């Protein structure tokens, strides 16, 4: 999906003069060809993240739409204050492209996991936040940023994720229904999509009709549209490869507490802790109860309880 996003930006950059891409010594092979084609529109600013974000803000002030590409910790954590003051406070057209969402990089170690990035990103007013589920959503997010001029953070996994949407999306800012259902709604974002769709299938075999909704735009969250799609559904379950207490589920819980106190909402995600387990992504999902089997059995138990 990283290639779907970046290739869309590069393609546009070959046609337009106002786009500039900064990498922070990351993305092996991603920019090789582009660096040759448009050496005047690409810069590797090395292992210096505060400077990279500050420079991106300056280039935006000089008239460019800037894309900063790096792994998530280096576009959001190491340089949080630069993102806050230089980009968001100044309302500049900079898109932070963060790679390695959730446990994409497992078992590289905790330093490389992005399990709290949405919590961090949601503290920043003016920051539009996307968490695409597949290359199609990633590409649509890229197109959205190319047409706009707002500070944006895009949470991507890595490469090789399967395509879920076979057709282009009409509007990536709206919740996207992947399956119709009436007993329960599974609301998710990001590449946990595979587990969610498989859970939907398992639930179907159990006779449970689950609606499946992808929410690629996390901020500003299209809650009203989501609310409409959830009409008549008794149980909502959020699923995300993110700390359970600071991501989408938490956001919906806050909203529903004020607006839909009768919602039955259950949040599935990663227990907030420093991860010492050494496992690949599928192992981590099993460890934190985020596999399709876990999701299906959790949903089943909720419905039984209800």
């Amino acid at each position, binding site marked *: 999906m990283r290639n779907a996003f970046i290739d869309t930006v590069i393609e546009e950059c070959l046609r337009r003069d106002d786009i*500039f891409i900064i990498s922070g010594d990351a993305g092996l092979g991603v920019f090789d060809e582009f660096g040759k084609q448009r050496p*005047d*529109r690409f*810069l590797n*600013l*090395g292992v*210096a993240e*505060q*400077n990279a*974000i*500050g*420079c*991106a*803000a*300056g*280039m*935006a*002030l*000089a*008239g*460019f739409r800037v894309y900063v590409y790096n792994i998530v910790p280096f576009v959001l954590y190491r340089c949080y*204050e*630069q993102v806050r*003051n*230089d980009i968001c*406070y*100044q309302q500049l057209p900079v898109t932070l492209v963060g790679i390695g969402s959730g446990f994409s990089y497992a078992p590289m170690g905790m330093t490389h996991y992005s399990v709290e990035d949405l919590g961090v990103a949601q503290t920043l007013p003016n920051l539009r936040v996307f968490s695409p589920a597949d290359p199609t959503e990633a590409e649509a997010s890229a197109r959205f940023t190319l047409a706009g001029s707002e500070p944006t953070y895009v949470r991507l996994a890595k490469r090789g994720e399967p395509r879920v949407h076979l057709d282009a999306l009409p509007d990536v800012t709206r919740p996207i229904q992947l399956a119709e259902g009436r007993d329960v709604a599974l609301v998710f974002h990001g590449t946990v999509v595979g587990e969610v769709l498989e859970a939907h299938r398992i639930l179907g075999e159990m006779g449970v009709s689950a609606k499946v909704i992808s929410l690629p735009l996390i901020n500003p969250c299209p809650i009203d549209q989501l609310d409409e799609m959830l009409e008549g559904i008794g149980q909502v379950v959020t699923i995300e490869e993110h700390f359970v207490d600071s991501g989408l589920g938490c956001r919906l819980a806050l909203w529903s507490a004020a607006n839909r106190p009768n919602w039955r909402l259950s949040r599935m995600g990663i227990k907030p802790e420093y991860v010492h387990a050494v496992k690949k992504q599928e192992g981590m999902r099993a460890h934190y109860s985020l596999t399709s089997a876990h999701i299906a059995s959790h949903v089943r138990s909720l419905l039984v309880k209800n």
Partner: protein
Amino acid sequence: MDHPNILDIAKRIRHSIIELACVSQGPHVGTALSCADILTTLYFQVMRLDDWESRDIGILSKGHAAMALYATLAEKGIIDKELLKGYCLNDGTLPAHLDRFSAKGVEVSAGSLGHGFNIGLGMAYGFKKRELDRRVFVVIGDGESQEGSIWEGALFAPTMGLDNFTVIVDYNNLQGYGRPNDICSFHPFAEKWQAFGWHTVEVDGHDHVALQRAMNEPTAGKPRAVIAHTTKGKGVPFMEDQLVWHYYIVTEEIRKQSLEALR
């Protein structure tokens, strides 16, 4: 070229700074006074500001000296002097640290140290890439030079080919709580910039002629660092080189004494 009234202009800017500090009852008068001559030279003798769309950019990275920038912009006629009346007040106009949406000429929002410098580098690079003949001048503090972001930018600027970029270090030798070199191993300072590949000049930061020369001399393709040796509280004898005037408040009594003593 020397400006015949440059000393008068600098004095009027200092006068405004003292008034602003008094009305707002806020801190940082010493740091604002220390960079008054640097800003005066920049805005009245060095930067090209006549065609606003293609102007040179001035950035006060040491955003806590905002009073000095506001006073300079007002003196230059870039902002209305009326705006100064709302400095740092409830329901006011200008915040104590810079917000680029607050007034014309405030190019960059700054207040946390070690930000404006890197934004300036990006602007200078952006102008190069857009083939615009625009220059960027950034004023940082000596205390600010302890920020890692400054040295990240210092490492990259020569490679980025930024001969349109100048950093002026307001080296007043007093940060919030002491002398920079007592707080960390600060010396040698100019040599650090030189070693990083910058065209480095040391000047008396209150000498307009020396400042102007330093900011205009050719740099053989390198970014420029002007280490401007200044005195904190410059112009008000009892404030000069006194640590307390980083935070002390200018009372009505102090205001009168300061304006009488102003030189």
